[in-house]
Structures are given as C-alpha cells and as structure tokens.
C-alpha cells in the first residue's frame, strides 16, 4: 500500500506549538531570568576567584580605611573591620559554596534518585527499608547531625556538604518514588514491559528522563540555596569555613561584632548577597517548575 503522508507536511507549521516562553506566565519568565542572572553571576565569581582575577588582594589590610562605606577610595562595596575589600572577599567567598554545593547536589540527587527508583519500582522489602531510613533521617535535626560530624572529624566544608547531600537524599527519594507510584497506576510501565522494553530503558529513559527531569532540575537549584544557608548557619556558630578564608557566613559573623557600634555595613553586605542569591535560586526553581510542569498540564 502506497502511503501518501507527504501531502500533510505543509500543515505542520500551522499546528506547531508556541514556544515555551510565549505560553508561560510573564512572572515566571521574569523569575527564571533573574534566577539565571544570579546563577551566571555565581559562576563568573567562581571563575574570577579560581583564577585570582580580583580587584584587591583579599588579605590586604588597609588600617586607615576600616569599615568604610561603599565607594570609599576605589572599594566599590567598602571595607570590613580589618580594612579588607568586601567585594573581593564576596567574590572569593563563592569558592566556599560552588564545588561543595555541587557535591551536595550530586550526592542528594544521585543517592535520592537511586533510592527512589529502588523503592518505587521494586517495592517490597526495599521500599520498607528505604521508608524506614527516610523516617529516621527526618527525625534527626540536620544541624545537630552536621555538628556531630564536624566534632568527630574537622570543620571541612566538603565533609559538611557531604552530610547535607546525604540528609537531602531522602527528600529527593520520596519525590521520585511518588512520581513512580503515580506512573504505576497509569499502567504504562506494565505496557512498556509487555511491549519488550528493557528494564534499563524503562527506568532511565521513560521514568527518569521523561518524567523526573524537571523535578530533579528544580531540586538541584534548591540544593544550591540550601548549601549556602547551611554554611551560613554553621559559620555563625563558628563551625563553617574558617578565617582567613572568606565565606559569606563567616563575614557576617565577623562583622556582627561591630553592629552595636553602628558599623552595620561589613555584615550587611554579605547578608544582602546571601538574600539575593538564595532568592535567585528559589525563584529559578519556582519559575522552572511553573513553566515546565505547567506546559504539561495544558
């Protein structure tokens, strides 16, 4: 039988769907744009810090110009209580978050996905054991757990982020598991088996790639924000990144001593940096969620 489907090819353009951005809510697009802006700033800062392209030497103390406000003699964001350039230290502070944060994300997503697939797809004993682990993890206050680990080893940011990743994994696992449970009642997984797809293809392509990728991307953006917040909390307690290596957390903590004297700027600058960065990651996750998931709802 001769098939004449060429005749339709012209029509496709008429039916072609609007692009993702055109169909989305303008607020969501703005959120994502801001989030991407923050993400790129973080990445650029990481590169600048990595190659040492900094406006000032981060450890260079200017005793004549301590706790200067922004704009004072070339210091765009002013100086801290030892007369060190705040902008330089903010840029360098990203070093404390970027790779360790990625480690936390990779551990959380990798382990969480694995556990989620195991408990959702296999079920049975695996599910029971993983649910149990999740419950135990949930009942432990995370900060206390991290402090325990820090006390047992040393206040190394990579070890801290490893713990953050491990404690985040159960949340990711339950998200992936819920997704698989949802898909299972649609019985397309059974259909895939019946039509001869291998288990690997079903899990990697049909479950993770088609159905969980948005969820995982969003979890990754939130993971970065999480990493920054955890480090800040720990630094405030004195267990985070240690001086003289700058991190946003220990900058706030060091500057806070001078707050009462009216020198608010040295701790406010890193606090604002944290505010806008964490906000950026959260808005990115939120906007992506609405744009990518909303598209499917239509």
């Amino acid at each position: 039988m001769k098939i004449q489907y060429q005749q339709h090819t012209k029509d496709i353009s008429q039916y072609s769907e609007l692009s993702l951005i055109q169909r989305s809510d303008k607020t969501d697009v703005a959120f994502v744009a801001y989030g991407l802006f923050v993400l790129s700033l973080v990445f650029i800062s990481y590169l600048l810090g990595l190659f040492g392209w900094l406006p000032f030497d981060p450890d260079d103390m200017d005793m004549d110009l301590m706790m200067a406000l922004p704009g004072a003699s070339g210091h765009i964001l002013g100086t801290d209580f030892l007369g060190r350039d705040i902008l330089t230290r903010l840029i360098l502070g990203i070093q404390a978050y970027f790779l360790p944060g990625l480690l936390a994300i990779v551990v959380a997503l990798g382990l969480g996905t694995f556990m989620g697939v195991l408990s959702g797809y296999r079920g049975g004993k695996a599910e029971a054991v993983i649910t149990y682990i999740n419950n135990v993890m949930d009942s432990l206050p995370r900060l206390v757990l991290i402090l325990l680990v820090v006390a047992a080893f040393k206040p190394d940011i990579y070890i801290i982020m490893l713990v953050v990743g491990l404690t985040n994994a159960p949340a990711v696992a339950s998200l992936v598991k819920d997704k698989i449970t949802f898909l299972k009642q649609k019985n397309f997984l059974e259909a895939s088996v019946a039509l001869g797809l291998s288990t690997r293809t079903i899990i990697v392509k049909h479950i993770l790639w088609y159905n969980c990728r948005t969820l995982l991307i969003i979890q990754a953006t939130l993971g970065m924000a999480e990493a920054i917040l955890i480090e800040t909390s720990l630094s405030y307690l004195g267990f985070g990144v240690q001086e003289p290596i700058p991190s946003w957390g220990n900058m706030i903590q060091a500057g806070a001593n001078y707050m009462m004297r009216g020198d608010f700027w040295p701790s406010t600058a890193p606090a604002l940096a944290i505010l806008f960065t964490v906000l950026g990651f959260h808005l990115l996750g939120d906007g992506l969620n609405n744009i990518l998931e909303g598209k499917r709802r239509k």
Partner: protein
Amino acid sequence: MSTTPLIKIEDLHTFFYSKAKQAFIRAVDGISMEVPRGKTLGIVGESGSGKSITMMSVLGLINAGPGVIRGKVTYDNGTINKNLLDGLERFVDVHEESGTVMHVEKDLAGWQKHSEELMKDIRGNEISIIFQNPKAAFNPFTVIGDQIAEMVMLHTDIKDPQAAKEKAIYWLERVKMDTPEVRYHNYPGALSGGMAQRAMVAMALASEPSLLIADEPTTGLDATIQAKVLELLAELKEELGITIMIISHDIGVISALSDYVAVMYGGTVLEYGKAEDVLSTKYDNKHPYAKALLASIPSLENIEKSGGRLQAIDGEVLDTIKVVECCKFSARCNRITDAVKDKCHNNQPPLQDIGGGHKIRCWLYQ
C-alpha cells in the same frame, strides 16, 4: 506454512497465594487452548473468570510476590519454538500441611530474571499487546509518535531515527488517524479515547508481531467508536495476516472478530470451539453457561423470547479460593436434570469433544 498452532496453552494453572486465608486463589485452574496461525481466538467470560490472568501468564507478566504458574505455553512461529513457562516452577517452594498451604517461598529475583530471559525475544518482537485503558498505556509526558518510533527502532531492522519516525507516521496512517504528522506530536492526554486506542494499536503493530493480544480493547469506548476499532482490527488481521487473541466480557465484541471462541468461567474453559458453533443461537448443544450468556445479550430476539425482559444469570461468580469437586457452574445452572444431578454436584466434568473440535465441559453431553 506449517500447520502447528502459533500458540498452544496446555494445562495452565496460575495461582496466587493468600497469606490471610492460607490458601491459593485459583485464578486460572487448568486451561488448555490453542490459536492457529492467522486466526483469531476470542476469550469470553464474566469479570473474575481468569481471562486477563491467562493473558498475563502467557506474557510472563505475573510477577506479584506469591503468583505461581504451572503448565505449558508453547510458542511456535516456525523459527522460534519454545515453552514460555519453561522451568519457572523451580523458583517456588510450596509447603503444604494436610491440605492447607502453610507457606509459599518464592525466589522473586530468580523468577524475574528467568522470565526476562525466556521472554527476551518474545515480548514486543513476537507478541504485542493492546491494553484496556489506552491512554494510561502511554508515557504521559512524551509525544505518542516518539513512543511508536521507539518500538520501531527496538524491534525492527530500522535503526535510523528519521526512518523510524516515517515508519511511525506510516503506522499512524495505517490505523486511520487523521493528519498523522500532527498526531505524531500529540501527547497522550490530547487524544480522545478512540484515537488513543488507535495509537495503541499502532504502537503494538509497530514492532511487527506475529501475535497480537487485545485485552478488552473496546472497554470504555462508546458504541460507535467500539465498532470502528473492531472494524480496524478485522481489517488489519485481513491485510497483515496477524494472529489475534481477543479478551472481552462482551460477547458481541468476540463474535465480531473471532474464528475460535473459548468461554471461561471460574478459571476453567467451559466451552471451546469454532465461533459459529459456540456462538450460534440455533443449536441446543451448548454449555448451559454459554447459552445463558448468549441469552443475556440485549437483542430484540432475546427480549421477545423471554417475555419483554432481558434474561440475567442468577447467582454470583464462583469464589476461586475453594477447591471444588463439583462442576464449577453447578450452583447457578438452570438445566440440571435429575439424571445428571449427582454428577454435577460431586464431580468435575471433563472437556468433552462433541464433534468437529467443539468441546463442552458439561455432564449433559458426556
């Protein structure tokens, strides 16, 4: 073309162990049937009679923890000839004590691995399946065309994505979808029930199988769409020479398509034979259950015969946990005569050939 049947089911038992009742639920209890090449076998029966479990057993989809399968399913297409249940009983240990099943031990991982091994070149490649709820059988988050193209690339010689896409569009055209190029880019949720069923048929056929199993293919579709889907299946069967096993509780659906019909009840086959024998309303040599089923079809003739009311079958479907020695239908049968009464209530009748391959499991015809 050889004359051996494409698929031959011999003495298939599929049990599920119920821990609470310490007994087996005998979902399929010793059925035998065969599907000749290029023909269609219809399996009809009430809900709970074991139709779908039969299909799932054939495809090796019984993985549920305590599922136990015994019997033989021979698949023979000339090049592949094997028993699809070969050696599965090795993985199950049943501990029985004075008639009660105390404990069933199953090596699930081993079972699954062995089953995968047996089914490797069968599932999709040789046997395809159409599900009851076509929309749910597609991955909801990707377009149907890509899913059909995936089947093409997995099961046929076409490995080039562009060629596979064209082939997928060809199949969509073949199942009479309007504007197949546009439909290719539709998500499953965007299709109506009838269209989703057509797309499902396209996906099942994309792997060019020898046997197509249709599990309640028209349930949930409205009557006109039902007729169209059946028409489509009949046409494809004619054109592609494909063998079909169709499962339905609707005797009308079965009669539209089948060459052979098996009537199932309580996990056993009560009547088996050519469609014209089993479904004919003229002859009286029929199992009481099959007769009652035919009488309950809402047709003008049936209504007139029974005085303006549609005839129903009294009673309920048999509890499949009990091991019964009597005829499984005896509790609901309205044709028990004094001559056979004792036998009906005490012995299970054998499946007796009453001539021309028409088999009936009833003491009235022994």
